[in-house]
């Protein structure tokens, strides 16, 4: 059943429309479900229960570890042979002065280490762009997408 808004984290409903969605779905009192809607909305906003738990976890760890001046977390799972809404393939762009004077491999190891639990629990691919603030300023500030899948996932 697709009409349950709580498990569709990609869309952020207003309180009213969420209530309506639930009303349509359950055909019960709007008032009652408006209250349910509020709870769902709160959970969605916290991003932990119904939202994007992996993306949220990655975001939290990278912020805590690197205090980045710029951070992008791109879910590239849709480019691969996984169900819609999956959180398996990510690209992260981390710009932090913690990378100053460190070689690329060391920076990547730092990011891999920060996200080791996610990598062991469902994150299948992690592409990393790790730059210092100076490098980021000098760059085009654009990151090319990862290469297209060739079907090896899950093997």
């Amino acid at each position, binding site marked *: 059943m697709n009409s349950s808004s709580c498990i569709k984290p990609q869309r952020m409903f207003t309180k009213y429309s969420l209530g309506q969605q639930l009303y349509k779905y359950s055909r019960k009192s709007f008032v009652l479900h408006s209250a349910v809607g509020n709870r769902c909305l709160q959970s969605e906003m916290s991003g932990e229960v119904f939202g994007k738990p992996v993306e949220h976890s990655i975001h939290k760890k990278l912020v805590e570890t690197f205090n980045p001046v710029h951070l992008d977390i791109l879910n590239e799972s849709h480019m691969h042979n996984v169900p819609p809404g999956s959180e398996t393939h990510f690209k992260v762009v981390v710009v932090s002065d913690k990378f100053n004077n460190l070689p690329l491999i060391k920076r990547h190891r730092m990011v891999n280490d920060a996200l*080791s639990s996610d990598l062991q629990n469902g994150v299948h691919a992690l592409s990393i762009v790790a730059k210092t603030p100076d490098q980021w300023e000098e760059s085009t500030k654009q990151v090319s997408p*990862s*290469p297209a899948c*060739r079907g090896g*996932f899950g093997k």
Partner: protein
Amino acid sequence: MNIITRTDILNIHSCSVITSLCRAFTSGIADNVEKLVKKNKVVVFMKGVPEEPKCGFSNAVVQIFRMHGVTYDAHDVLKDEELRKGVKAFSNWPTIPQVFIGGEFVGGCDIMLQMHQNGDLVEELRKAGIRSALLDKETEDTK
């Protein structure tokens, strides 16, 4: 003809999936990986084979080495779950592909791509005694 070849490859793949997932990692595997990475100047652990990579990241590494005219040993981790785990543990690196030059772990796809773009790869290959074909191409272009 093409279709027959592809089907054959797929069959070989599904036969080779190893089911023993939670087998303990032993020092034997680490020794094995160490031997493999020292066997050739450039060694790549990838998904699929260079002629038919099964992952875009692995394919990118194959294409980079093709441009540099580098010959290398390639190991398909999809055919060997133990090797897949073993190489990750050996290099302490969580993803595939993995590239070793001169027996040393260099990085995965992102790092290779960046080293290719900023010229570090030519230098890294030179240290291992390999002349990148891109250098010859540059010489030809300037003639």
